[in-house]
């Protein structure tokens, strides 16, 4: 496990995080912090607990011991405020197949930020999905569906992005697009927690490797 030094007032801070699944220890006393402008890449083999870590930080999984802090406040009381600042894109894309990209994004944006249709159309265009706004998602390819999901990055005002394997089905252009988005978000003062086997080239990239201790 790699320990990362703590800053004075980190955006996200994880202290003494221990998680067991079944009888197996996934990680023990994991510590890291994430400041604005930083990208933290979580690495590790299959079953090393990358997704579990992501879900713990999101607040989806609470079978753990340890503390999470958001801007210095302990999470556990203030999940709402944290969730307003969080954008999570998991393995499951949250793209409904019968709805169109436009309809999908209208809903998922409303859960957090208000967004108008023109904004959504612009975001879809930026994701290279112009012309597909009104086709049902089942007619899109896996990579295009992933782009629909990633369009939320453009529409969100969340400071923290948590991306779980966002590159899996993207083509070369898509990969470049997403890398640019991540870099831009960091430049603008956001923070990104990302799992991928993809080699990221970013100025302030940090890595955290899970499963080394065992």
């Amino acid at each position, binding site marked *: 496990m790699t320990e990362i030094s703590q800053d004075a007032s980190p955006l996200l801070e994880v202290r003494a995080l221990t998680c067991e699944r*079944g*009888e197996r220890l996934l990680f023990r006393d994991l510590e890291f912090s994430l400041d604005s402008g930083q990208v933290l890449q979580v690495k590790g083999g299959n079953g090393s607990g990358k997704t579990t870590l992501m879900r713990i930080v999101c607040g989806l999984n*609470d*079978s*753990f*011991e*340890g*503390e999470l802090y958001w801007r210095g406040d302990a999470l*556990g009381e203030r999940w709402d405020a944290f969730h307003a600042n969080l954008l999570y894109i998991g393995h499951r894309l949250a793209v409904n197949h019968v709805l169109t990209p436009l309809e999908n994004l209208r809903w998922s944006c409303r859960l957090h930020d208000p967004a108008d249709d023109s904004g959504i159309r612009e975001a879809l265009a930026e994701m290279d999905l112009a012309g597909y706004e009104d086709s049902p998602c089942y007619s899109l390819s896996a990579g295009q569906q992933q782009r629909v999901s990633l369009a939320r990055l453009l529409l969100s005002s969340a400071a923290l992005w948590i991306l779980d394997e966002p590159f899996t089905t993207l083509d070369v252009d898509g990969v470049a697009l997403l890398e640019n988005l991540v870099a831009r978000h960091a430049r603008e003062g956001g923070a990104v927690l990302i799992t991928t086997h993809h080699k990221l080239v970013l100025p302030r990239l940090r890595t955290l490797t899970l499963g080394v201790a065992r």
Partner: protein
Amino acid sequence: MSGRWQWFHRLGSPKWFYEKTTRWLPWLVGAMALFLTVGVAWALLFLPPDYQQGHTSRILVVHVAVAGTSLSFFPLMAAAGTVTLVWRIKLADMVAKHAAPLGAWFTFLTLASGSIWGSVMWGTWWEWTDSRLVSMLFQLFLLLGVISLRTAIENAETAARACALLSIVGCINVVIIKYSVDWWNTLHQPSSPISMEVGNPNGPEFWVATLVMIVAVYLFLAVSLILATRNEILERENNAQWVRELVAQAR
């Protein structure tokens, strides 16, 4: 959530429970044996036959005791469920896990003894107009629902919390079902058969015998639940140091 309550976890730690119950069990078993012997002997040998029901009233001694006990399962499971959900104490779930099948069994025994009694007194094994039997039947269904939810969910922790929530919902529901079935019943009772009222023609000796039996059945419940929980503890904590030492000693 986690972290804050760690001190409380230790208070309800399986090891603590196991050690305490090792000391309590002989006393509990002894008391249970005593009350059971006295209750059964009294009911079968010494209780005078009822002038109206004859020897059949002896069944009631067991039936009332078992029925009373089976009513305590949902409150017990709901309480354990609250502890599981709020404080995450594993011990509460170990108790709740075994309370459900035990409760189903007690509820079944209530129905069976009630229906045996009814077969003599009413001439029928099942009587929808008796609201107690009907609400017991639905309690049995609800308990079976909790058990099947437990078996359906593979992840033990998810299963524990899901069953905890269902037990709380079920506990509220059992009360509502009981009152609505009572209500339904009073309106569907054109010619009331002999009611299952136990008190009226019976003397104090019947009541005392029943009381002894109730205590005996409650002790039986406590002993079975403790034994089942102890097994569960050994199974779940089989990697813990103290369990290994215990097993090593036993060998």
